[in-house]
């Protein structure tokens, strides 16, 4: 089971209380996680990645296992600890402002 942690605004939008647990078929990548996430919570479509290009929104970051994976390929395999559910996949609103 994949564990996903969303920022507060997206948890509110999707009416999610805490971590999300997802079944992901096949290889565990950013894309496969987000596909599964958006399938369960359609209101999140367009809020993490662009509707058309499917690119990550500029001020959204993806962290896991103390690493910033935001600039990795969306189809790159994620660390085993994420795939096994030992570590969560974090969707983070980037720091902005002063």
């Amino acid at each position, binding site marked *: 089971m994949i564990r996903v942690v969303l920022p507060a*605004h997206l948890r509110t939008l999707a009416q999610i209380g805490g971590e999300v647990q997802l079944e992901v078929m096949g290889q565990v990548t950013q894309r496969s996680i987000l596909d599964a996430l958006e399938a369960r919570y359609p*209101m999140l479509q*367009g809020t993490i990645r662009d*509707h058309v290009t499917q690119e990550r929104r500029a*001020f*959204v970051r993806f962290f896991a296992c103390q690493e910033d994976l935001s600039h990795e390929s969306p189809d790159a395999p994620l660390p085993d600890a994420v795939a096994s559910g030992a570590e969560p996949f974090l969707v983070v*609103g*980037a720091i*902005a402002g002063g």
Partner: protein
Amino acid sequence: MSKVRVLVGTHRGAFIMESDGKREQWDISGPHFAGWEIYHLKGSPADPNRLYASQTSGWFGQVIQRSSDGGKTWEPVDNKFVYDGVPGTHQWYDGKPHPWEFKRVWHLEPSLTDPDTVYAGVEDAALFRTTDGGKSWQELPGLRGHGSGSRWQPGAGGMGLHTILLDPTDPQRMYIAISAAGAFRTDDGGTTWKPITKGLHSAILPEPTAEVGHCVHRIAMHKSRPNVLFMQKHWDVMRTDDAGDQWREVSGNLPTDFGFVIDVHAHEPETIYVVPIKSDSEHFPIDGKLRVYRSKTGGNEWEPLTKGLPQGDCYVNVLRDAMAIDSLDSCGVYFGTTGGQVYASADSGDTWAPIAEHLPSVLSVEVQTLA
């Protein structure tokens, strides 16, 4: 007994304020969608409990919310705004071509007759429509397809389509305005559009009477006279009596004719309201005095309305979508400020009182008159 519901969009959420017809005591709910920018929310004239809200964020993009119970509960609906076909380019600030990119919905205008039909004015400027209550949105591409689209350029606040006026006597006719492309009219339900800028003069343009490029801030109409429009341009208050074919200036004795809002009295089509702002480089009232100006003659002759408004050390702005008019017998006028105040007048502007004073910066104000 009649009551009113005021819908306020702010930089950090939406607020809903309700009162009976006296408009003295207010129940305020909110913030709804706390922390998000609520550019606009508006109710359907055909079903007052059907509300739509534009919820946006620099981080998470656009969300559209819909309520079927007057704002007590909300549900997100479709937020996919995709330009029709190959989007092409408009001018960027440096004069170079820039691809059309959707950023946010500035204004939602529900149909006068169908609660499931809503028009959305967006940045980068385009007009979208839903006919299924927000489950899907389609662009009306004829507007951007007007031959001038590649010459449109954003103003400092972005290239937003912020005004949508529906003609109550002719469902094929509507008016829209864009900062800073100008104003347009369709007479065929949105298939084709024509600029309605003849008579406008903008010294900030290299060609002051150009067909497009005028920074129109707001247009208002009285439902009984849809051919008469009033415009607050960047500078100048304007009027047309022929559906925009020809405009004339009616700034008259205003202390400054820069401003954002303009609106029309519910029962007196020649009574109009503006909030003069000192200048485009100082977005606050002259002398720190917050004054609404009213003309009972359709422009030119204006009187300041000050009773109940701060007349010293007030340096707020009133943004383009932040004034509204109710239709009770004693006409109510409402506006919100960038300082987080929402003021109401239950006597056509003669006296004012705050409904709320410490909200986040106000982006939009709408009012519904409920039976």
